[in-house]
Every structure is written in C-alpha cells, then in structure tokens.
C-alpha cells in the first residue's frame, strides 16, 4: 500500500491543471477531504501559481511598441 499523501502529491499538478479523469479526481478529493496537510499543500500550490504570474509580469516597454509598429511593411 503506497503512502496516501505521496499518492496525493502525484495527483496535485494534474488536479490543478484539470486533466485528471473523473475517477482520479474522486480519489484525490476523497484523500483531501480527510487530510488537512495535503489540503494546505494544494492550497499553497494554487496560491503560488497565482503569485508567480503576478511577480514575473512585466509590461512591454513603450519604446518596443513603437519599434514593432515601425516594422510594418509600408503600402506601395
């Protein structure tokens, strides 16, 4: 019998990506319902993904926007 938390860990990324089958999803949810530690770790992973997206988001510099526009091929 494998460690249920180790199994739950294996399921975490596909679970959060919504690519588990219904059966796998039910298995993961059954374990999460009774394991506070795994619940916290899943919640953390979700928060981390959102936080990473925000942290690395850099708006495009205005000078680059102008340069890209200038690359358009002029009409003859």
């Amino acid at each position, binding site marked *: 019998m494998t460690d249920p938390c180790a199994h739950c860990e294996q399921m975490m*990324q596909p679970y959060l990506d919504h690519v588990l089958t219904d059966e796998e999803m039910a298995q993961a949810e059954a374990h999460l319902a009774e394991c506070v530690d795994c619940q916290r770790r899943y919640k953390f992973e979700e*928060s981390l993904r959102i936080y*990473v997206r925000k942290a690395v988001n850099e708006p*495009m510099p205005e000078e680059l*926007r102008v340069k*890209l526009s200038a690359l*358009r091929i002029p009409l003859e």
Partner: protein
Amino acid sequence: MDAEPEEGQRLATEARDRVRFEEDALALSDQVYRVARHLASSREDADELMQETYARAFRSWRSFTPGTNMRAWLLRILTNLNIDRGRRQQRAPQMQPLEANDYFLYDKLAENGDGISDEEQVVERLSQDDIVTALSVVPHDFRDVLVLVDLGDFSYADAAQILDIPVGTVMSRLHRGRRILKRELAESALEEAT
C-alpha cells in the same frame, strides 16, 4: 488590358488583408511579450527577439491561416528564432537529480513560518526578485513549457504545437519545470532565513 482592373482589385484586397493582419498581430504584442520576456534570458534579449519575430511575421503573413490561433503562430516563430539564435547553450539536464518533490517548497516555508496557517501568507514570504531569478535559472527546455502554459495560458496541445514536441513531453517537462522552480525558490528562501 481587361486584366488590369482585376489585378488592381486583387492588389487592393491583398493590401487590406495585410494591414488587418499587421494590426491584429500588433494588438497581441502585449500578450506575446509577457511570454517572450521569460523565454528570453534578459530584457534586452526579449526586446530583440520580439523585433525579429514581428519582422518575420510581417514578411511571411501569407503563411498565417486566418481563423487559426495567431498568438500561437507568433510564439511558434518566436520560439524557433530563440532556438536559432543559439540561446540554448545550456543542455537539458535530464540526468540531474531532482530530489525535491512537489510539496518540498511548502514544507520548507511552513517549517520556518512560526506557525503561519494561511497559505497565501506563506507564499508572500517569497520576494518578487526571488521569483524572477528562480524562473531564469530553470533550464530552457523546461522553462519554455512552463512559461507557455503557466504564464501564457496555452493548453498542453498548443504548447506542444508551438514547440513541436509531443503532448506527453509537454506534461513531463511542465511538471519537472515547476519542481525545479520550487526547488530554486526553496533555496533562496532558506538562504534568506539563515
């Protein structure tokens, strides 16, 4: 002589299609940049890569099929250019051991968290700089997939098409890339704690 008005009509239609294509491509530039910035190794590289991509896209606009995903089409040009430019000095460290598991980072942060119980607060123990640096350390093969899916919101199938690799490879590189990112974050968090 009769052919001339028809030819003129054809050229006018083509010019209109091309202008529309250029406008659509430019309208996507913010979204393309969000991904390009982290596929490239630096801001300067991202800037050059964007210009090369748009120059090529404008030249080869006829090869875009209207109605298909233009953002994916642009990123396919961009990732190919990125590879051509030899920005892949780093080989994929397939053999590099990766002892850290998916729960590793949370467990490390929670350990040092003085009993913080809110997962969102645990996340905030990481600084923005730590995250940007950690992402830049993820080897290219893994980072490409991570950036396309997690920052660019591309599906596994789109990422597979953009990078010309099987969907299964997208999944395995994505999972591994996320683990490498978390291992790097755990290391920087632990350095700061000591």
